[in-house]
């Protein structure tokens, strides 16, 4: 529904320039952990895409591990609503 709407909007303005694409690629590169270690020289787009895929997979794995850890912590602790309020304030 909404994706159909956005797609038709894009085919209307079909001129996506190389510059826009390389701009998006370099924004993506800046998000990667490797970019913070090295100087901000431009990596080739294929390398950026590869690193992006690897990074997303890493993040998914971290979230899975954290879910497992949270699930174990939940199993061992009963949480009253008073305790939840305390925990909430500790998180803020």
């Amino acid at each position, binding site marked *: 529904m*909404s*994706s*159909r709407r*956005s*797609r038709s909007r*894009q*085919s209307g303005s*079909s*001129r*996506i320039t*190389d510059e*826009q*694409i390389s701009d*998006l*690629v370099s*924004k*993506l590169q*800046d*998000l990667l952990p490797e970019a913070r270690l090295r100087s901000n020289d431009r990596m080739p*787009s*294929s390398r950026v*895409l*590869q690193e*992006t*895929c690897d*990074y*997303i*997979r890493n*993040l*998914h794995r*971290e*979230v*899975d591990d*954290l*879910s*497992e*850890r*949270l*699930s174990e*912590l*939940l*199993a*061992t*602790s009963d*949480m009253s609503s008073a*305790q*939840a309020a*305390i*925990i*909430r*304030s*500790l*998180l*803020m």
Partner: protein
Amino acid sequence: MASTSSPAAAVVEERESGGKRKRGGATGESEVLGEEAQPSSKWRRRRVHEIYSSKLLDAIRLVRSGSGSPASAAAAATQPRNRAVREAADRALAVSARGRTHWSRAILASHHRRLQAARRARLREPASPPSRHPTSPPGKGPKTPALARKAKVLGRLVPGCRRLPFPALLAEASDYIAALEMQVRAMTALAEVLSTVSASTSSSSGGASSSPA
């Protein structure tokens, strides 16, 4: 112990903030609504982190209080609960995105579809959901076969982005990565708080004095 953890948490936040987490004045809402163009700054705001942490806590408490949702496997085994926690965390993340990205809408839509299917299966024969197969969008931009292959892999990793044109896919991936990073930070903080609380609870009930450094 509990008395030292709040100032400790505050110290950690101060150390982390150094320009990364912005705090507007009294208006928390405008802080989230403004400057949404930059995904990394949007997901690093303190307010978004707080909103997500709160939603996350609620969501996993629901999972704990007994797998009430019909979609999840009701057995008290570990694997379904892990999955339920992961999905609850993802849904909370998608809600925090405020519906402006494909990936967030896709996460919520797939959950909604699963609930509908479970509901229909219980009531009557399941209706077949309309499968959308639009033609592949034109104007992807010049891409070599190697790039096209990697773009396809990326499209499978980001939820709901398999058929997006290349520029939109890159934008979604940027936002998704920033959101995932926040999710990791929030879940880590919650795990730390929960493990500290449960450790201090068990040590106080056990009577042994083990004071955490």
